[in-house]
């Protein structure tokens, strides 16, 4: 069994061509990035706004409730609704992207919101008190301090989206999900297991640049990288419910 998986993963035939591993890998990365960008554009500004104003906290709760929606069921339902409306492949792509965006939003939204919420009220008060405008407080104080939790949210979202983007294959799209579904259909278990392995490896590989990003953009004053952490300091934790 393991031997056949290794054979499948190492044979040049399975890597080349329009339905080879390389092409599917790139499709998978493409879906993931597209979904992440859309989800981030929606969730980060929203999370910042909720954290900054303290208004609309119910949106975070509502978004978290979205996690309970079964992805596959929603995907089929959306595809049925949109199939007659949208032309060609977009009729399959759009529902897949919507489903994955809905999956990614809760992690990013709660990470961003929790990051802003966790800003020491004294720092926020001082920022206003020394004469920062509302926007300056957000950009110069709240956002930089929220970054560790915000990035944690992004990382959680990446893992979930990479893992779940396999469902796109159910509605006839590409990505690594093809190997799982086609492998099951043709009883080619080497391809199924190999595909699953590739998804896991991709998830880890995509996490690495975010870890690097975190090191680059988060102030050492927040991470305690300048010296050993003291117990009194808040640890960086993943936002609630982020499944990884």
């Amino acid at each position, binding site marked *: 069994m393991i031997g056949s998986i290794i054979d499948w993963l190492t044979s040049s035939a399975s890597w080349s061509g329009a339905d080879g591993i390389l092409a599917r890998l790139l499709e998978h990365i493409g879906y993931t990035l597209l979904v992440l960008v859309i989800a981030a554009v929606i969730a980060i500004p929203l999370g910042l706004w909720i954290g900054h104003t303290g208004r609309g906290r119910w949106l975070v709760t509502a978004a978290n409730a979205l996690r309970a929606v079964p992805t596959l069921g929603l995907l089929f339902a959306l595809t049925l609704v949109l199939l007659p409306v949208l032309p060609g492949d977009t009729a399959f792509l759009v529902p897949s992207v919507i489903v994955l965006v809905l999956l990614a939003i809760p992690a990013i939204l709660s990470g961003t919101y929790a990051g802003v919420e966790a800003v020491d009220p004294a720092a926020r008060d*001082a920022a206003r008190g*020394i*004469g920062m405008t509302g926007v300056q407080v957000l950009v110069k104080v709240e956002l*930089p301090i929220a970054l560790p939790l915000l990035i944690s949210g992004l990382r959680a979202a990446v893992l979930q989206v990479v893992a779940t983007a396999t469902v796109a294959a159910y509605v006839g799209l590409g990505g690594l999900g093809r190997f799982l579904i086609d492998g099951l259909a043709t009883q080619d278990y080497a391809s199924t297991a190999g595909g699953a392995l590739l998804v896991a490896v991709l998830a880890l590989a995509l996490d690495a640049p975010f870890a690097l990003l975190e090191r680059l953009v988060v102030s050492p*004053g927040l991470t305690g990288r300048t*010296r050993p952490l003291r117990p009194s300091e808040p640890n960086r934790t993943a936002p609630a419910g982020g499944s990884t």
Partner: protein
Amino acid sequence: MIRLDGVTKQYPDGTVAVDDLSLTAPDRAITVLVGPSGCGKTTTLRMINRMIEPTSGSVTIDGQDVLAMDAAQLRRGIGYVIQHGGLFPHHTVERNVAAVPLLLGTPKKQAITRARELLELVGLDPALGRRYPSQLSGGQQQRVGVARALAADPPVMLMDEPFSAVDPVVREQLQDEFLRLQGELGKTIVMVTHDIDEAIKLGDHVAVLQVGGRIAQLARPAELLAHPADNFVADFLGRDRGYRALGFDSARVPLHDEPTVSLGATVSEAAARAGSDGWVLVVDDRRHPQGWARPADLPGEGSIDERALALGGTLARVDGPLRLVLDAALSSPSRRGVVIDGDGALAGTCRATEVLSVIETRERPSDPGDPISHPAS
């Protein structure tokens, strides 16, 4: 001059935090708002820089109506110090101090240079500027908070419990340095504290507020201690009022020459100089008092070294407040209070009974009413 006139803050739920409060904080003086929690002192302070908008009444700084100014612009011109410092954890210490000048458009290099000067001014090593706030102690963070408030050299400063988050020893040190700094800088300061001792120590004027946001009494500290306006103020001032009031009264007390021996003298020399009670004052070669010794208790062969000294006594300066002079007498092992001159050298000793005689001849501080201009309320 900061002037609050008939200022009221009522919240939408009907709670009145501050009720028709009028107060003038004179230039170059420290005005302290003190009172129990819920008395509206912080609300009052925060209405001066519009962190809270008054429901009615007017607030002016040097005649300018703050309500007519842009809030952010207004705040950039007012130093603001809060409990725990409120430093930005993601910025280095010097970046924190430079925050206001940077907001005002000062070039970064210049702002950072100025920040390092300010760190020195508040008693910190400028090398700490490269660190982050989480690497500093609470007392150091509080100093950085003061440095940040001073960075743009504002004429007016608002301070909300600036020294309450640190332990008593550090607090006292910060208070002393703050008074020294204020002596140099002469800012117009309004400060909030819940600690009446801090109010009395730091305030030129002290406003005691009571729950409901009304001023129970506005007076100089000595007047407050001598003439509490009502039972609430008297209770809030607490015990030892008569003794604490002596802290604001300086008078010459009769001094007596005191025989001394130098540190290192032999015990027999010391015994020859000791008074009838057996105690002799030990000084160093600059005549700075070191402590008391009783040669009769020491082995006859030895010399007077540091271990031989009884150290319980406090020192009072010739021109110091009577409280310290009396304390010097009360705390001295020989019952003779050691008084020093401005250079720290021995001036003479005093006796508690004589200090008390001086106190009895002193007038109590004047009745309230005249000294502080109190806007009609």
